[in-house]
């Protein structure tokens, strides 16, 4: 590009601002939130931007209400999102489970801070990795995406809206305080540059519509309230008509279909960054902002002549088990740095199933993990 031509889509912004910006580009039209550090800037940005494009923003009376409101708005046809952090994410869990069972598309942003409890509101931790997967009760499908930078926050926020609409599974965007508050240079995408999936609505006459039909794709069509399809939505186990059932055959059919969606579309959902080095005996597995320190440590090790492979899941849930196993087959040791006491390390251990030793590098004091804290673990592994 000639130096004289300025790209008017280049900006410097924080991860939180980028998240709001990208959500609008993806077609967000309803946001309900509740103030919480370190995610509040997302709500603040959207409170001024949404009405200007005919969308709607509401600050609800609590976190639970914000989650309920986005589910209601999604059923009325809007692309919806809420944003929160650890304690608020805990409060939302019951209604997240409601969205899982009723298959209502929604995006939930969690800018992770230190926990448990009020913990460290202004400091980063990767505290909610397991809460994102198992925070709500019962077997359920869930998708979690985990950006490492402001630029990737744009990509993954946009991307979050497609799987939630396509598979009718709630998507959790697991940012962390570092990604939320760091300012970086990014380029805003145009809507026509993006692949955005729109909700699949029914084409059958209303009388024939079955809201939880066993389709070939395992994903039933979703009607919108007010469009002539008068259907019932309940958090009780239901059959394909949407009405509650206690029939074990029907319950099993629906519950298996619900959970099968995740397995069936796993390859479309799971994204990883792989940087394998031939002959490497050690690998590093990292995600979120920690992955940037980890990548730096990998480069430092390579400069010292150590062969290191690197694996970074952009999709945290479903877990990139096959990719992780492949890394375990290549190397003897996998270093897993995390700003928690090893939440994903256990998943790595499960995936590699003894093929490689898993070494944890953990930090929960509110400070990010630096490359120099990861490098010694790499060096030790090859001694």
């Amino acid at each position: 590009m000639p130096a004289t031509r300025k790209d008017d889509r280049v900006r410097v912004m924080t991860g939180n601002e980028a998240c709001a910006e990208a959500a609008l580009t993806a077609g967000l039209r309803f946001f309900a939130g509740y103030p919480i550090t370190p995610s509040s800037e997302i709500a603040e940005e959207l409170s001024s931007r949404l009405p200007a494009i005919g969308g709607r923003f509401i600050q609800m009376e609590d976190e639970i209400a914000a989650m309920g409101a986005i589910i209601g708005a999604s059923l009325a046809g809007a692309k919806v999102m809420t944003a929160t952090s650890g304690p608020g994410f805990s409060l939302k869990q019951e209604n997240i489970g409601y969205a899982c069972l009723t298959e209502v598309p929604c995006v939930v942003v969690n800018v992770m801070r230190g926990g448990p409890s009020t913990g460290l509101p202004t400091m980063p931790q990767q505290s909610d990795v397991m809460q994102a997967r198992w925070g709500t009760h019962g077997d359920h499908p869930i998708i979690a995406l985990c950006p490492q930078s402001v630029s990737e926050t744009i990509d993954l926020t946009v991307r979050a809206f497609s799987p939630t609409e396509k598979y009718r599974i709630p998507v959790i965007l697991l940012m962390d305080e570092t990604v939320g508050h760091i300012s970086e240079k990014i380029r805003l995408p145009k809507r026509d540059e993006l692949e955005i999936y729109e909700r699949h609505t029914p084409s059958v006459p209303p009388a024939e519509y079955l809201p939880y039909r066993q389709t070939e794709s395992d994903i039933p069509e979703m009607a919108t309230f007010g469009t002539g399809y008068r259907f019932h939505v309940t958090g009780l186990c239901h059959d394909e008509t949407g009405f509650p059932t206690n029939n074990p055959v029907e319950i099993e059919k629906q519950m298996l279909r619900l959970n099968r969606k995740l397995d069936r579309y796993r390859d479309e959902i799971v994204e990883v960054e792989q940087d394998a080095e031939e002959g490497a005996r050690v690998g590093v597995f990292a995600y979120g902002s920690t992955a940037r320190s980890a990548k730096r440590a990998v480069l430092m090790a390579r400069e010292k002549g150590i062969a290191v492979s690197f694996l970074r899941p952009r999709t945290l849930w479903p877990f990139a088990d096959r990719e992780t196993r492949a890394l375990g087959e290549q190397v003897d040791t996998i270093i897993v740095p995390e700003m928690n006491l090893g939440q994903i390390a256990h998943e790595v251990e499960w995936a590699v199933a003894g093929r490689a030793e898993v070494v944890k590098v953990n930090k929960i004091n509110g400070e990010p993990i630096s490359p120099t804290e990861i490098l010694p673990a790499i060096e030790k592994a090859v001694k």
Partner: protein
Amino acid sequence: MDSFDYSSYLRDKKFPLIWCSGCGHGIVMKAILRAVDRVGWERDDMVMVSGIGCSSRMPGYVDFNTLHTTHGRAIAFATGVKMANPKLHVIVVTGDGDATAIGGNHYIHAARRNIDLTIVLMNNSIYGMTGGQVSPTTPIGKRASTAPFGNVESSFNISGLAQAAGASFVARGTAYGAVQLSKYIEKAMLKKGLSVVEAISPCPTVYGRRNSMRDPVQMLEELKQESVPVKKAAKMTEEELEGKIVTGVLTDVEKPEYTAEYEKLIVKLGGAA
């Protein structure tokens, strides 16, 4: 006796109803459907939202867009539905435990916000579905499965709560006075703003039988005897009103409605389609 045809509003394949014999909720449902019929709203444009509990099972039986949500959260879900499409007519059906214990925060904030929802709150003074535990509206001294020696807590005046929090329409009726109740619900539906109709509904099965009111007919009769029209109540002392049910339209005011105000903001910012 008139012959109102409920069939076009009901999902009669879902019958029999879950409600016990003698429960007042079926009467309230009929009062709602008659009101809908008089108002003339299209079923396609109506959304009935509920939480958890006996009253919250109503959406399964009526042929609207229906949403049976989590315990206490009906108003929060309904707020999202109404915001996303303000043209929809949204009715929330809920109970005393659902709306004023676990969901109390949403109840008062919806009133403060004055969003155009119609809340029909069936107050039977008990948690019925879970077997008769004490609720925020169980009167002092009455027994419940978790108040075996009689309730020692004060109870809420839940209509008063909505009035104080800013609702633009509040009325109280009973399952005994079904015709009046239906008229209040009709007014509530037509009101632009947050409206609450508290419908006192008898629960002989888990409330009455613990409190010497085992007979459903007796319970309905008592609703009649305890009811005092709001005009008459205005001339009575607090002691005279002890244990009475003040019925009628308690609040009916005009004030800015939330979604309409938000729409003005959209227009002002150039966001209107």
